[in-house]
């Protein structure tokens, strides 16, 4: 017989339980806060990077107006920067990216492709990639040519019907993460006559296997053309690839890819009821226009700040992706010289900056004319052109400006939904809009749609609804920021159009970690990235701190620290929440900012012999530098000459207003290994400053293992 427990003991037990529970709940809440802060850090840094593109554009504009080259070399250098995204006429493309002359050696053990492709080719390819083999360049080029031919026949908006294939699977961003694609095929089955797929853009960039993903997707596209549908994403874009380093070595392949991307369809419609686009919509989205425009004219959709433009300038942006011409000056030029003037045999005197600017602009315009002719002549199969040169015999032909067409594409590739009503410019990304629930409602009503599916934004669970479940975001790259940061997901739709989700994480380790470990790990990665960003702004931070430290004590309050940091970095992060993990305060609640910044500096890769100001500049502008290097590297070999390297720096420093001695540059150069006769492998150079990568190789599992999570 058990005596009833005396009341005091039970009371004590109860109290103890409450205490533990109280403590535990607080622990979990703190963890949740840390998780959300981590997410905010990653997102704000990612979008700030995209904003850099605008800054780069401004840099080019600045160059155009202010830089006086002191030699013909420098002149060439600038002009070369502007004509990097040329479009090719069909015949020229075949010739330039010729593959038939490429021999596949007997020693090649990788997969062989023959055309037309068969299902066996696809499965062989998958097996080969799983074994880490590569596809021979000849086959790659052949595949790209065939893909382009196929895509050219497709309309801008693909139509899918669930009555034929019963179920449609929609996948979001993959970003070069081949393991995720393998996982999707493992869990869901390969594309086949009874299994339809829609891949909603952003196949490339950031992940390490962008080319493999393209190869797999294009192969399935050709094998099952009725069942596989691809939408263009904002990363299927030449300028964006340059920035994010879709590092395909081999100019032919890169050139072909540029000319395949522009032919990717823009949207997919399921049963006329579900619209699938990569980014989103805007209040001016017009599906009729989208169906009719010539999508392939837009090789790059990226653009800088808005201006009132003539059509000609819009084409400049289209073709080379970056606007160089100053609006007013260009209009002046257009007014005064309607046809391009012949290139002067000799450039004007270097001492006259304005003259030079004008000359460069003229030269650029000529290049553009040349490109435009190439592009236009490609459309000989079309009877009506929807450009501003409308046939006078058909007054009913739609007459949209290139500008309007371009905006349509930009909006669907770059926009993001927002909780508030309305539609405003997406200044964070630098392109597209933020669209509210009212915009969604209007578009759905206008076209009798049930809901939208889009991607473009990483979501923790791999998918997320918003706008009262009228907008679904689907994201298929798991562990995007870091192992354990997020799941990937895909969505299946049957004839009832009710979405069913499957989630996964393509990394074994993620499952063995506890929630705490997973969060800690991702958090560590986020803070490392954040500290690097802080370091990159050392000079500006010191100035900001000093403003709060008039007496020069070297210390400031934590409150002022938070305010100062936000004013410099402008990431919109909760700095007071993050502070304990970023900076230690003294007992009196003050922070010694000088030693804090020194600690930050020590953490970064030590390049002691380079002057610290320079180091900071490199960090802050690494992405921009990379883009510029890639543009200079015309043959896409990964190498630029020492001279070019030198010139890049000079241009940069004149824009950045920093004192850069020749010694400083020499120091830099000395820290790089020279390869191949005075050429610099800029990937090596940039890698030295790439300590933080969101997805670095070593973190990926070396052997793919299917996840059993569902």
């Amino acid at each position, binding site marked *: 017989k058990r005596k009833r427990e005396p009341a005091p003991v039970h009371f004590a037990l*109860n109290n103890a*339980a409450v205490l533990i529970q109280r403590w535990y*709940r607080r622990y979990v809440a703190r963890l*949740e806060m840390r998780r959300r802060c981590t997410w905010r850090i990653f997102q704000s840094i990612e979008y700030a990077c995209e904003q850099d593109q605008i800054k780069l554009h401004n840099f080019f504009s600045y160059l155009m107006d202010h830089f006086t080259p002191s030699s013909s070399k420098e002149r060439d250098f600038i002009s070369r920067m502007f004509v990097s995204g040329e479009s090719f006429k069909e015949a020229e493309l075949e010739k330039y990216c010729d593959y038939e002359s490429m021999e596949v050696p007997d020693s090649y053990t990788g997969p062989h492709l023959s055309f037309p492709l068969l299902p066996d080719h696809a499965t062989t390819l998958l097996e080969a990639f799983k074994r880490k083999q590569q596809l021979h360049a000849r086959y790659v080029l052949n595949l790209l040519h065939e893909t382009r031919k196929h895509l050219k026949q497709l309309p801008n908006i693909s139509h899918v019907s669930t009555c034929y294939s019963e179920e449609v699977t929609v996948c979001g961003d993959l970003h070069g993460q081949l393991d995720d694609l393998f996982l999707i095929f493992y869990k869901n089955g390969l594309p086949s006559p009874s299994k339809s797929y829609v891949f909603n853009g952003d196949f490339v960039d950031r992940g390490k296997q962008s080319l493999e993903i393209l190869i797999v997707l294009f192969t399935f596209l050709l094998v099952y053309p009725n069942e596989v549908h691809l939408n263009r994403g904002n990363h299927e874009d030449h300028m964006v690839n340059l920035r994010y380093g879709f590092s395909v070595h081999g100019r032919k392949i890169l050139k072909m890819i540029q000319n395949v991307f522009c032919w990717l369809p823009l949207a997919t419609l399921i049963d006329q009821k579900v619209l699938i686009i990569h980014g989103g919509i805007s209040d001016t989205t017009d599906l009729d226009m989208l169906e009719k425009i010539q999508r392939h004219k837009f090789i790059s959709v990226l653009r800088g700040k808005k201006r009132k433009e003539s059509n000609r300038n819009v084409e400049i942006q289209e073709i080379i992706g970056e606007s160089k011409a100053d609006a007013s000056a260009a209009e002046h030029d257009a007014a005064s010289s309607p046809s391009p003037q012949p290139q002067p045999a000799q450039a004007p005197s270097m001492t006259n900056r304005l003259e030079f600017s004008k000359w460069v602009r003229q030269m650029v315009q000529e290049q553009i004319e040349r490109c435009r002719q190439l592009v236009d002549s490609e459309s000989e199969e079309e009877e009506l052109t929807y450009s501003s040169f409308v046939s006078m015999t058909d007054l009913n032909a739609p007459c949209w400006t290139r500008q309007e067409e371009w905006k349509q594409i930009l909006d669907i590739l770059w926009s993001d939904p927002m909780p508030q009503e309305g539609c405003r410019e997406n200044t964070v990304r630098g392109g597209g809009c933020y669209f509210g629930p009212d915009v969604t409602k209007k578009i759905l009503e206008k076209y009798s749609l049930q809901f939208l599916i889009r991607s473009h934004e990483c979501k923790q669970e791999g998918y997320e609804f918003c706008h009262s479940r009228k907008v679904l975001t689907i994201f298929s790259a798991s562990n995007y920021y870091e192992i354990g940061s997020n799941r990937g997901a895909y969505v299946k739709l049957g004839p009832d159009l009710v979405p069913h989700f499957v989630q996964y994480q393509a990394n074994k380790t993620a499952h063995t970690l506890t*929630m*705490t470990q997973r969060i800690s790990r991702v958090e560590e990665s986020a803070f490392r990235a954040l500290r690097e960003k802080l370091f990159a702004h050392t000079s500006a931070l010191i100035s900001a701190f000093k403003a709060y430290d008039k007496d020069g004590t070297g210390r400031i309050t934590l409150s002022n620290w938070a305010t100062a940091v936000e004013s410099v970095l402008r990431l919109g992060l909760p700095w007071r929440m993050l502070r304990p993990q970023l900076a230690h305060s003294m007992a009196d609640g003050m922070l010694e900012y000088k030693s804090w910044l020194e600690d930050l500096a020590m953490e970064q890769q030590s390049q002691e012999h380079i002057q610290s100001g320079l180091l900071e500049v490199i960090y802050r502008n690494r992405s921009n530098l990379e883009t510029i290097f890639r543009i200079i590297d015309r043959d896409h070999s990964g190498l630029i000459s020492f001279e070019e390297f030198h010139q890049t720096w000079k241009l940069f420093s004149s824009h950045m207003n920093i004192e850069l001695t020749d010694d400083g540059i020499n120091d830099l150069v000395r820290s790089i290994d020279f390869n191949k006769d005075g050429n610099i492998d800029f990937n090596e150079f940039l890698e030295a400053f790439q300590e933080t990568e969101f997805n670095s190789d070593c973190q990926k599992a070396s052997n793919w293992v299917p996840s059993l999570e569902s």
Partner: protein
Amino acid sequence: MRDLVSSFLGVHSSDRVVAEIEKKVIEAFEVFDHECNKTVDVREIGSVVRSLGCYPTEAELQELLAEVEEEEPTGYIHLEKFLPVMTRVLLERSYQPIPEDVLLHAFEALDENKCGYLTKEELVKYMTEEGEPFTQEEMEDMLSAALEPETNTVCYKDYITLMIVDDV
């Protein structure tokens, strides 16, 4: 707002201190403000309060909620109601943190046989039947980190050390 808080307290706290606390509260609040409209779901307010360094019991949390909820509860808490109340809570240092040794004593109180560990069954019983019971999810979460799978026991001293280290 500052005057409101000060008079609320009947205490004269320096403006600076109050301003700083308010900024902290707003930051924490905004992390959970998903609609970006100065509201937080009532189910997540507990996380906001706790991540500001407070250790309220569920009962205390309910009391707090009663103060900040709308007259006709909408399921959302507005910042303008939450701010003065939370600022006061922080100034008064209500819901003090639990020191490590106190936590240890609590576990020891549950450990009848004083063997330095709890069995899985014991822990589950206490946490889900006593005090302010855990949900199944909370129980599973705690076990996933605390339980040693071979012995099916929780060595609470080690567990506490692990948690304290992780909890920056």
